[in-house]
């Protein structure tokens, strides 16, 4: 089933559910550290799993506000390449692009870029559902919802999703080669140095895309 944006609607379901599950985990963890209402408000106004989990983890370990914001700023750098990828695909004026930027997370950006239809509409649809799932999950987590073993199932959605996005955005053989190299080098980097994180791996991806010989 494909909607007008070109996004296969059915593919959105596991992604949104996985985001909701992590929302529950976040809500449960955050309410004990920053309180139930700030936990929910953080999901409403930040909408970034990486930033919010780091914020709560750092506060729990006694970090200062400045240290927390520094880490949040470093984590936010990952949005820059994703935004640059989306920019030529988004139609509309500045206000429309600024509105859609709210929904930019790794998963929604990927779905929008891989979409065969309107990237802007896909970003909006996938982003709105992801946002609702994240906030609803946080509320359920704050209320003490029990997930059973859903967490492990949700965790596996993300590597599978990114494999799919890499495959769907590889339009030439050279794209596939670069994707394989970037994936393998990133895996080796993270195994050797887990602190490299997403930013380190994004740097690897950019490095394999450096212009050399023309295609």
């Amino acid at each position, binding site marked *: 089933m494909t909607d007008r944006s070109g996004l296969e609607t059915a*593919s959105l379901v596991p992604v949104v559910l996985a985001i909701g599950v992590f929302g529950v985990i976040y809500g449960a963890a955050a309410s004990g550290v920053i309180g139930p209402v700030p936990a929910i408000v953080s999901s409403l106004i930040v909408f970034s799993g990486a930033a919010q989990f780091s914020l709560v983890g750092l506060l729990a370990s006694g970090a200062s506000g400045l240290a927390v914001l520094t880490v949040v*700023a470093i984590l936010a750098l990952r949005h820059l390449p994703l935004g640059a990828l989306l920019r030529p695909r988004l139609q509309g004026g500045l206000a429309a692009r600024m509105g859609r930027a709210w929904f930019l997370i790794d998963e929604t950006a990927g779905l929008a870029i891989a979409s065969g239809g309107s990237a802007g509409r896909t970003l909006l649809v996938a982003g709105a559902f992801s946002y609702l799932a994240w906030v609803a999950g946080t509320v359920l987590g704050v209320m003490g919802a029990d997930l059973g073993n859903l967490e492990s199932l949700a965790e596996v959605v993300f590597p599978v999703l990114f494999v799919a996005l890499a495959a769907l955005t590889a339009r030439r053989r050279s794209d596939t080669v670069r994707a394989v190299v970037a994936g393998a080098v990133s895996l080796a980097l993270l195994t050797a140095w887990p602190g490299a994180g997403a930013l380190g791996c994004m740097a690897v991806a950019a490095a394999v895309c450096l212009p050399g010989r023309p295609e």
Partner: protein
Amino acid sequence: MSIWLLLVLAALITYSSRVATTAVLPAPEGRLGVIIERLPAPLFAALAAVALTDSAAGIDDWPVLAAVAGALAAVRTRSMFLILAAGLVSYGLVGWMVGF
């Protein structure tokens, strides 16, 4: 710093990073434009590695590896739904076989 100020500043930082290249800065051109044009597939492959190593199960967990292998086996379909389904079914099958 109060928790409310911290949350507002974190929200501002995060949204600023989202809006910067999506809406405010000019579209990349020249050498940077070439990198951006080539970036999607390698970027998502790199993020797959991040997601794989971030998972609590880790990269030495058979069901998780089976999920990735299942997804890779289905990439020729070029269907997001089928790739996701292949990954999740592989995860379930191998998880059932090894008793999670």
